[in-house]
C-alpha cells in the first residue's frame, strides 16, 4: 500500500511539473491542480497509513485511531487550494480576455499591456 501511495504522489508531481512547464495558462492551471493533489496526499500520508481506524471516537470499548492532525490540516488545505485554483482560473481568464492570447511567457518585443489588435 505504501508503495502505491508514494508512487501516486510521485506520478501526480511529475505530471503536475510537466504541465506547469507548458506555455499556455490552461495546462498550467491543470498542472497546479495536479500538484495540489500531490501535496495534499503527501501531507495526509505524513500521518502514516492506517485502514479501518477512522478518527471518530468509539463510544464503547477501546479502539485504535489513525493520526487526525494531518487530516485536519489537509482538509483545510483542500479548501484553500480550491480557492487558489479559482483565483488562478479567473486571472487566466482575465488575462486572456485582456491580451487576446493565453501565453504565459512575455515574448520579446511585446509589452505587458498585450496586443490590442489581435
Amino acid at each position, binding site marked *: *500500500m*505504501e508503495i*502505491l501511495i*508514494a*508512487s501516486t504522489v*510521485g506520478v501526480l*508531481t*511529475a*505530471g503536475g*511539473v*510537466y*504541465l*506547469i*512547464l*507548458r*506555455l*499556455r495558462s*490552461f495546462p498550467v*492551471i*491543470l498542472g497546479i*491542480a*495536479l500538484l495540489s493533489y500531490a501535496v495534499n496526499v*503527501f501531507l495526509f500520508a*505524513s*500521518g*502514516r*497509513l492506517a*485502514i*479501518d*481506524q*477512522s*478518527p*471518530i*471516537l468509539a463510544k464503547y470499548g477501546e479502539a485504535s*485511531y*489513525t*493520526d*487526525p*492532525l494531518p487530516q*485536519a490540516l489537509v*482538509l*483545510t488545505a*483542500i*479548501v*484553500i487550494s*480550491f*480557492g*487558489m485554483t*479559482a*483565483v488562478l*482560473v*479567473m486571472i*487566466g*481568464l*482575465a488575462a486572456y*480576455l485582456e491580451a487576446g492570447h493565453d501565453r504565459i*511567457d*512575455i515574448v*520579446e518585443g511585446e509589452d505587458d499591456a498585450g496586443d*490590442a489588435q489581435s
Partner: protein
Amino acid sequence: MSDGGTFLIIIALLPFLGALVPGIMIRAGRTACATFTAVPTGLALIMLLILAPSVMRGEVVQAELSWLPQLGLSVSFFLDGLGLLFAGMVLGVGLLITLYARFYLSGDDPMGQFYTYLLLFQGAMLGIVISDNILLLLIFWELTSLSSFLLIGYWKHLPEGRQGARMALTVTGAGGLALIAGLLILGNIAGSYNLTDILQAGDAIRASEWYLPALILILIGAFTKSAQFPFHFWLPHAMAAPTPVSAYLHSATMVKAGVFLMARLWPVLSGTDAWFYIVASIGLITMVLGALIALFKDDLKALLAFSTVSHLGLLTMLLGFGTQAAAVAAVFHIINHLTFKAALFMTAGIVDHEAHTRDIKRLGGLRHLMPVTFVIGTVGALSMAGIPLFNGFLSKEMMLEEASHTDWLSNRYLVPALATLGSLMSAAYSYRFVSHVFLGPVREDYPHTPHDPPFGMWVAPALLAVLVVAIGVAPFLAEGLVTVAANAVTGADLHPHLKIWHGVTPALWMSVIALVGGAVLLAAHAPLDRLWIAAPRPEAKTIFDRLIAAVVTATRALTEATHNGANSRYLAIFTVTAVLFGWVAFSGSGLAAPTRELLPVPMVIAVGWILMIVATGSLVIMHHRRFRALVLIGIIGLSISAGFVYLSAPDLALTQISVETVTIMLLLLALHFLPQATPRESSTGRKLRDGVIALAAGGGVGGLAYAFLMRDVDTISGFHLDNSYEGGGGTNVVNVILVDFRGYDTYGEIIVLGVAGLVIFALMHALLDGPAARRLRNADYAKDLSRDRHPMMMVVVTRVLMPIALVVGLYIFLRGHNQPGGGFVAGLVVAIALLMQYMASGFAWTQERKKIEYHTLIGLGVVIAGLTGAGAWLAGQPFLTSAFTYVHLPPIEEFELATAMLFDLGVFLTVLGAVMLMLYSLSRIARFAGTSVNVEPMDYDPGDPAYDDGVER
C-alpha cells in the same frame, strides 16, 4: 510598575495618539489645529517635568512591558539624565516649532498633514531617547527616517523637496541597516538586548573579537544620521523642507540622534584606539570641512546647514576624545547648539518669509526694517561664533581646552590647530550671517519689502535667544542638567563646574585667535568667494545621483538577465533548484532502517491506483484537448477521494468529492470563454527537457514519501484524541481539531477563502470596465450554444433535488461534530445544490429568487465565527475556547449544544458565500458576452399553446 514607569509609557504613546488629532482638527481651523497639536506635546512635557526631579537626584525611571520575550524584545523604557536632556529637547523645541509653524505655513499648505507628520516624528525621536531595549530603539530609529522623509518632502510640488527627501531616506536608511547589524552583534556579545545590561558589559564588549565590526557598523548608523563626513551631503539638501522642519530636525532632533547614540553607548564603546581614531578624526574632518563650506554658502539655510554639519562634527570629536571632561563638554554643547541653532533657523525662516528670499547676496540692511529679528539673529549668531557672555562661548572654550591637550599619532599640534581653524571659520560665517544680512545700508531691491513678523512667529526664537544669553551669563543654571546627563553618558559621578572665566589658558588664546581671525576672514570674504567659486570641487549631489543611477543600471541589467518574462523558465529553474536542494539534503545523512511493514493491497485498490496512474498519464499526453483534460482531472480527483475513504479519512473523502465537483464546474464555465484547445508549440527538445525535470521532481517527492511512510514518527495527536470528547465535546476528532484545537487556523482560512471570493469579484469588476469588455461583446460565443439551453428534464430534476440536497447539507453540517461532515463540506454541498439551479434554470431566474447577497454571506460567516471566538472572553477564556452542553428533551434523543457549532456555522456561510460569489462573477462575463437573459426557467414553455403545432412565435 511604578507611577513613574506608567508616566513614561504614556509619554512615549502621547505623540502617536496625538498624531491622529491634527487631521481631524484642521476642519476646525488652523489655530485650533495647532492648539490641538500642542496638547499632546505639552502633556508629555508636563509629565516629563514631573519625573524630572527624581532623575535629577540621580534615579532612573524604568518601565517594561513584555512583548516577544523569546526574541529578547520587550517594550521597555528608561529615563536617566541623558534621556531627560534629549526628551526635554524633543518636546520643548517641538512645542516651539508647533507655534512657529502655525504662522510660518501659508494658506495653501495642508497644515493637518504637517502636524501629523511632525507628531509622528516627535514620537519616533522620543522613542529613541527613552528606549531601554536596543531592538525597540532600532524600530524608533527607522521610524525617524521614515517620518523625516515625509517632513522633508512635505512640499511635494518642489522637485528639490522630493529629491532631498529621497536622498535623506537613502542615506539614513542605509545607515539604519548597518546599525541593525551592529546592534545585533552588540546584543549578542552582551547576551542581552537591554541597554541597562549592555552598559554593564563594557569590558566584555571591548575585549570581544566582534568589537571592531560592531563598532564600525554602529558608527556608520550614527554617522549617516548625524551627517558626518563622508555622509554629510544629505543634510544641506534636506533644507528644501519648510523651515520649521529644518529648525526641528536639524538643530534639536534627527541629526542629534547619531550623537545621542554615540553618547548612549559611550561607556561601552569608547576608550579604545579604534574609537578615538575613527570617531575623533571623522568629527574633526567634518567640523573643519563643514565650517569651510558654510563660509561660502549664500543661501541662509545652506549656511546654517553646513554650520550644523560642522557643529555635529565638533560633538562627534568631543565624544571621540573619550575623556570624561570631553563628554561633559559635549553634553553642554548639545544644549547650547540646540538653543542658538534653532533660533537661527527660525530667524532664517522669518527673513525668507518676509523678504521672499534667503540669498545673502540679495539681503543686507535688514537691521532697520526688522529690528526684533535682528536682535534675535544676532544673539544666536554671536553665540555660534563663540563670543563671551553667550552660551556658545562656554562650550566652545571647553572643546578647545580638550583639544589643546589631545595628541594625534603623537603629534601635539594637529588637533589643536585644526580645532582652532574650525572655530575661526565658524566665527567668520557667524559674523557674515549678521553683517551681510542685517548690517549695511538698506537696499531698494528686495523681492518683497520686509518688516518684523507677528508676535506668534518671533516669540519662539526669542525665547531661545533669552536662554542663550541666560546660560551665557549664568552658566550655573545649566549645571544640574549637564551634570546628570554627563553622569549618564560616562557612568561616573562627576561634578563639573561651568564657568565663564578659566584664567589665561591655551584655550583662551585659541579662542582669541579664532574670533580675531574670523573677523579678518570676513573682511577678505569677497576675493576669497571669487576664488572659491572658480575652484573646482566635487559636487556631492552629482556624485550621489551618478551612484544611484549606476546602482539602478546594474540591478536593471541583473533583473533583465534573470527575469526575461518567460514564466515557464522561472518555473523550470525553480523546480530544478528545489530538486537539487532536496538531493543534497537527502544524501547528506543516512536513513535509519524502516520500522513499518507494508500494508496489504486489495484488488479494488490496485484497480483504483491503475485508474489514477492512467488518468494522469493520459492527462499529460492529451492535455491539448482541454475539455477531455477536465474529464481526466475529475477521474483523478475521484480516485483520490476513494483512497481517502479506504485509508480512514472519511472527512477528507467528503471534502475532496465536493471540492472536486465545484472545481470542475467552475473550470467548465471558464473554459467556455477560453480557447478549446492548446496549440502544439513545444519542440521535441523542450518536451524532453521538461519531461526530465518532471521525472526528477516526481521521483524525488515519491521517494521522500516512501521513505517516511516506512518509518514511525512521534506525533502530538495523542493529546487531540484524548481530549477531543472531554475538552471539545465531539467524537469526530478531525472536526474538533478544526473548530476547537486549531480553531484559529480555521478562522484564518475561512477569511482567506472569503478574500479569494472577493478578489475574483473585484477582478471581474475591473475586467469588465476595460478593453476586455469590448472583446467580449464582439466575440461570437453563441454559435456553440445549444438551442435548448435549459432542458425541461434537467430543470425538473434539479428542482426536485434541491430540497434533498439542502437536507443532506443540513445533515452533514449537524453531524459534523461527532461524525464525518462539518461546515466545510456542508457549505460545498449546499453550494453545489445552488449551482445546479443556476445551470439548469439559468442565471437570471435563479438570481431573482436569491434573497441575500453573497458578499453579505461571506461577511456574516466571518463575523459569526469571530464573535463565537470572542464570546469565550466573556467567560474569561482565551479566544475560541469552546463550551458545550448536552440537552435532553423528552421526545428526542439527548443531543449536544456546542459553541463550536456556531463557529462551524460561520465556516459554512463563508464557504457558501465564496463559492457562489465566484460563480456569480463568471456569469457576469457570460452576460457581457451577449448571452441572452432568461427570466423564465426554460427557453421553451411546454405548457404554452403556441408551441402545440411546433411553430415558434
